[in-house]
C-alpha cells in the first residue's frame, strides 16, 4: 500500500490560518488593538526609567508615586540590604551557574534558609528561584496520582499551574466558602491523600481568608494544609509571619509558601515546614532541582531583609495606618472597593468596565501615580480592578496626595 494511494484525506494546501499556531491569540490581539486604537496608553508596557526610592520612580519622564509594586515594607533600598548584596557580589560573584543540589548551594543560600527558619520558627526551609516555582514544585510533588487537592477558586496562577503539573485530582471550591470546602472534603473517597490549598491574603481584592475556621475543617477531615502567604509576610501577624499567625493557627499549617518579591524586596521563593521528612523535597522536587539557584547577591539581600523584618513592628503599624487612611479616603470619595474594611496592604478599586478602567489607569499615570491594572480573565467575576498596594515607606502626605489624584482622575473619567 504505497504508490497507488492518493492520500485523499490529506489537505492539498495548508491554510495559513489553520496552520498558524498563533491563531488562538487572535481575539486577545484584537481586544488589545481596539483598546490602543482609541489612543489609550498601553497599561502593560510601562517602563520605569529611574527608580528613586521604594515609593517614587520616573515613568514617561515624569516623577511618579508608586502605589502598585507590592513592595510592602520598602526594603528594596534599605542600606543594610544593599550593602549585603554588594558584598556578596564582590565575594561570591554574579551567579552560581548551578542547581541547588549540585554546585549551586553557597553559604548564602544556607544563611537565607536559616533566616527563614528563624523568621517562622519552623524546622525546615527550602529556597526556590521564585515564588512561582515554589508553588509549582511543592504542590506538584507532594500531591500525586490518586491524591486530592481541594483549593480556593481564586487561587494564584502559580497554584493552578502547580496543580496542572502534578497528577492529583483537582477540586476547587467557591472563594472563602468554608461550607463548600467542607462538603468537598467529605466527598473524597476514603483512603485518598488530601491537600487543602489556601492563601492568607488574596491579591486581587486584598481580602483575607478565614484561615482559623478553614484549617480546623481541613484538619478534622484529615487533610494536610498549604497556605500561600505571599502578600502577608512581613506585615500581617504579631511577628509578620502572615494571616495564619495573626489568627493563631500557624502551628496547624503544614506548608507555608512565600516569596522574596514582595515584602522582602528582591526575588526568590520558599517553603517552610515542620514536616519531619521535609528535606527529601530537595531531591524529588523538579522545579527545585532542574533550575539554577539564586545569585549570591540575591540570597544575601533576602537574608538581611528577612532578619530586619523580624523587628519591624513600627513599620507594620505605619503600613496599617496607610492602608486605613487610603481605604477610608477612597470610600468617602465614592469609589467602590474590593473589601468593606481594609484587610491587608492591598486596596482594590473596582472599575465599571475595562475601557473606563484603562482610561482611569492612564489618567492616574498622567497625575503622577502608578497603580496596577488587573483585568479579566485574571480577576474574580471578570472584574476590572485598579489595585493599590501600600508601602510602609509611603508618608502620610503621599497618601493624601494619592487621594487627591484619585478624586481628580475619577471625576475626569466619570467614575465618581
Amino acid at each position, binding site marked *: 500500500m504505497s504508490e497507488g494511494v492518493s492520500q485523499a484525506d490529506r489537505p492539498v494546501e495548508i491554510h495559513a490560518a489553520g496552520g498558524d499556531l498563533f491563531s488562538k491569540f487572535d481575539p486577545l490581539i484584537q481586544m488589545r488593538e481596539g483598546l490602543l486604537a482609541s489612543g489609550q496608553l498601553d497599561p502593560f508596557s510601562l517602563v520605569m526609567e529611574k527608580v528613586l526610592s521604594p515609593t517614587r520612580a520616573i515613568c514617561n519622564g515624569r516623577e511618579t508615586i508608586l502605589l502598585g509594586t507590592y513592595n510592602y515594607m520598602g526594603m528594596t533600598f534599605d542600606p543594610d540590604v544593599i550593602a549585603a548584596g554588594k558584598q556578596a557580589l564582590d565575594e561570591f560573584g554574579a551567579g552560581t551557574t548551578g542547581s541547588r543540589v549540585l554546585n549551586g548551594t553557597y553559604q548564602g543560600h544556607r544563611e537565607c534558609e536559616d533566616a527563614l527558619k528563624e523568621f517562622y520558627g519552623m524546622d525546615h526551609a527550602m529556597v526556590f528561584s521564585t515564588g512561582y516555582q515554589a508553588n509549582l514544585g511543592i504542590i506538584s510533588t507532594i500531591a500525586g496520582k490518586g491524591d*486530592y487537592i481541594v483549593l480556593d*477558586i481564586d487561587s494564584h496562577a502559580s497554584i493552578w499551574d502547580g*496543580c496542572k503539573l502534578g497528577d492529583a*485530582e*483537582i*477540586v*476547587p*471550591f*467557591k472563594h472563602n466558602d468554608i461550607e*463548600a470546602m467542607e*462538603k*468537598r472534603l467529605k*466527598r*473524597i473517597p476514603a483512603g485518598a491523600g488530601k491537600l487543602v490549598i489556601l492563601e492568607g491574603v488574596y491579591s486581587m481584592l486584598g481580602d483575607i481568608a478565614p484561615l482559623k475556621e478553614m484549617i480546623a475543617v481541613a484538619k478534622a477531615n484529615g487533610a494536610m494544609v498549604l497556605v500561600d502567604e505571599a502578600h502577608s509576610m512581613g506585615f500581617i501577624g504579631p511577628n509578620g509571619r502572615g494571616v495564619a499567625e495573626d489568627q493563631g493557627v500557624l502551628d496547624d499549617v503544614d506548608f507555608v509558601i512565600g516569596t522574596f518579591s514582595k515584602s522582602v524586596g528582591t526575588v526568590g521563593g520558599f517553603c517552610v515546614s515542620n514536616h519531619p521528612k521535609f528535606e527529601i523535597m530537595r531531591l524529588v522536587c523538579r522545579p527545585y532541582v532542574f533550575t539554577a539557584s539564586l545569585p549570591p547577591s540575591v540570597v544575601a539581600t533576602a537574608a538581611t531583609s528577612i532578619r530586619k523584618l523580624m523587628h519591624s513592628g513600627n513599620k507594620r503599624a505605619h503600613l496599617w495606618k496607610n492602608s486605613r487612611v487610603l481605604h477610608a479616603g477612597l470610600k468617602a470619595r465614592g469609589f467602590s472597593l474590593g473589601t468593606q474594611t481594609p484587610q491587608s496592604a492591598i486596596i482594590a478599586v473596582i472599575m465599571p468596565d475595562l475601557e473606563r478602567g484603562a482610561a482611569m489607569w492612564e489618567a492616574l499615570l498622567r497625575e503622577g501615580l502608578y497603580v496596577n491594572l488587573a483585568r479579566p*480573565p485574571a480577576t474574580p*467575576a*471578570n472584574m476590572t480592578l485598579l489595585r493599590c498596594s501600600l508601602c510602609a515607606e509611603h508618608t502620610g502626605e503621599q497618601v493624601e496626595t494619592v487621594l487627591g489624584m484619585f478624586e481628580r482622575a475619577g471625576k475626569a473619567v466619570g467614575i465618581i
Partner: protein
Amino acid sequence: MDRAETEGRIKALVVPFNTKNVAIADATTFAGDLEFDSLTVMDFVAAIEDEFDIIISMNQQAEIESWGQLIDAVVKLKG
C-alpha cells in the same frame, strides 16, 4: 439511578445558567452551544455536585464537552 432520571435532575439545574434558552440535546456543547465561561462552569458543576453528593474533579471535567457526556459521567459517578 437511571439515565433519564439523572438527566431530568440536571436539566432542572441548568435552567438558571442557560440564559439564552438553548435547546439541549446529547450533542450540545457547553463551551460552543451554551457559551459557558469558566465562572459559569464552576457554578454549574458545584450545583450538580451538591445535588448528587459527588465530586467532579477538574481532571474529569476536562473530559466532558457535551451534555450527553456530562449525564454519562454523573450516572457513572453515582454508581
